């Protein structure tokens, strides 16, 4: 890889990290809390980019893993809330369960209604944290094992993920006694580590999310630079060729799909901490597809491009939120850009930026006209698999 390009890549990452770490110098806690949520969206976009841009798997139901991660954390935080603890420090019971209690049942998680016992292990916050990541990975693993072994083609995988998120959303809504249905989980306690409470409107919470995003971005980028990442891109290019080289293609696809799910679950966990609620709306189809829109506009094959795209789109929307018409107009603009991206600019704005810097570097004599592009942050888009 060309040195100048590598240096530019590294610089982009460092500048981005510096900017998000410096934000608290300019904004108050109210805005920082909003930014924390946008950073979470950025994380979601990174997951989409990994799955779609690198592995060639379009996940139209990323909200599923996001939602699962969110609910897992929310369950722990709910049990830590003052209202739940009113039932007893060792026997917390969420308020909605009291309202949905089986008549004559004991006021304890074990038996207050059907399924409430599932909440018992969540009394330990670490369990909630672990499940936020483990559960989405488990679901992704099972789904991936079925779908990738059958060699189901790209568009049908996308449709399956779409149907799955809708399915689970309905199940969550239906299981009112255990999940509080439509209302979601609110009135959560604060995330607590080693005695420090993360009030969502405190700068430490912002740093928690920012740190997590930096970790995720760096880790994912390193992952795609490994040999496995290169093989993954080869799989995206020509699955069969990779098979004839002796690799178990499905395993790679499942692995990276699970990593993408883990990122989404992690994002869900952080969102719950920052937003103090979780709800079935996290699994709305429109939200899942919106994540894809962010990643596409930012640049699906660029982890940082997708990330910045998501953050910027949402920040601009927030800036416009004074006037309702402006927000709606902004959404229309993004819709338009999305159509343009699908038609003409598959590598998104990051791809466009990359081409521009290519041009600039060449005219400065710092790079030659070479076209190898894998293992850099903006590989070329996958061929249509349908």
């Amino acid at each position, binding site marked *: 890889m060309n040195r100048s390009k590598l240096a530019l890549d590294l610089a982009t990452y460092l500048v981005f990290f510096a900017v998000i770490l410096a934000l608290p110098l300019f904004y108050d806690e109210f805005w920082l809390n909003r930014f924390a949520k946008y950073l979470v969206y950025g994380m979601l976009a990174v997951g989409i980019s990994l799955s779609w841009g690198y592995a060639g798997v379009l996940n139209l139901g990323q909200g599923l893993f996001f939602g699962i991660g969110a609910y897992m954390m929310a369950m722990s935080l709910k049990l830590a809330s003052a209202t739940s603890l009113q039932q007893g420090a060792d026997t917390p019971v969420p308020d909605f369960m009291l309202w949905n209690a089986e008549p004559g049942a004991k006021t304890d998680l074990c038996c207050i209604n059907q399924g409430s016992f599932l909440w018992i292990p969540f009394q330990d916050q670490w369990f909630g944290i672990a499940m936020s990541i483990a559960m989405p990975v488990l679901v992704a693993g099972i789904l991936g094992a079925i779908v990738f072994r059958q060699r189901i083609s790209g568009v049908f995988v996308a449709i399956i993920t779409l149907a799955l998120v809708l399915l689970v959303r309905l199940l969550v809504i239906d299981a009112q006694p255990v999940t509080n249905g439509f209302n979601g989980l609110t009135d959560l306690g604060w995330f607590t580590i080693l005695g420090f409470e993360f009030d969502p409107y405190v700068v430490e919470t912002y740093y928690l999310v920012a740190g997590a995003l930096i970790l995720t971005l760096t880790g994912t980028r390193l992952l795609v630079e490994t040999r496995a990442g290169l093989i993954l891109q080869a799989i995206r290019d020509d699955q069969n060729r990779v098979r004839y080289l002796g690799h178990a293609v499905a395993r790679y696809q499942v692995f990276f799909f699970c990593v993408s799910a883990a990122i989404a679950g992690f994002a869900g966990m952080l969102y719950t901490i920052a937003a103090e609620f979780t709800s079935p709306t996290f699994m709305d189809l429109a939200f899942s597809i919106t994540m894809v829109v962010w990643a596409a506009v930012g640049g699906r094959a660029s982890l940082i491009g997708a990330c910045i795209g998501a953050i910027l789109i949402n920040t601009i929307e927030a800036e416009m939120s004074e006037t309702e018409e402006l927000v709606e107009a902004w959404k229309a603009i993004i819709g338009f850009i999305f159509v343009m991206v699908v038609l003409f600019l598959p590598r998104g704005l990051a791809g466009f930026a990359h081409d521009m810097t290519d041009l600039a570097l060449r005219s400065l004599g710092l790079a030659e006209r070479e076209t*190898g592009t894998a293992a850099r942050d903006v590989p070329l888009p996958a061929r249509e698999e349908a």
Partner: protein
Amino acid sequence: MAQAALTIDALGVSFGGFKAVDEVTMIVEEGELRVLLGANGAGKTTLMDLISGKTKSTAGRVHLYDHDITNLEEHRIARQGVGRKFQIPSVFRDLSVQENFEVASCQNRSVFANIGFGFGAARRSRIEEVLELTGLADDRHVNASSLSHGQTQWLELGMLVIQDPKVLLLDEPTAGMTQAETHKTAEIINSLAGRHSLLVVEHDMAFVRQIASHITVMHLGRLLAEGTIEEIESNPEVRSAYLGSQGIA
């Protein structure tokens, strides 16, 4: 007597009654370079599909040395030591030449073994060797989609060389090549014989003369004849089959 690298025993596949390959029995010895001839539709590519796992056979067995590789999944057969080059060159068009070779050099046993950076000195020098051998050293950073047809063929061949399988199945390695390119390909292939066993499907008789010692002729899914070039050329059945079918190739 040399060991049998590839043993094909009464192998056959039937697609709804139509026998694309019918009771083919063949042994490729270790180090041998066997050429597979036959008109279009004779079943040569299908035979390769059966060996490499692309198509499931409905009869017979295939052994790689002592291992039964009949109807295993493609990647398992490849791991056992079978490499395949396709009629339409199959390379990674979105990656550079060097990256193509890098992928081919990756160990293929597990995902986790590849969660690591770099390729080590031994693999690096091997990749360099093959870049030289295929004449692609100057184009190492070029996108595979930008290569000429001949170069793409060599790229695929090079990937196979790096993969280092015990048996190589080459399907028309000189298709679409100029005379000069064909000559170079013959060099590469000849350098492989001996350490590897090769089964090569070809139409270009001049090329076949440059590389072959032993030839198998297929016709309508069946084995028609086997022997040296002279034996095949003077075989009356071969003559009538080719004269009769007029060779659409």
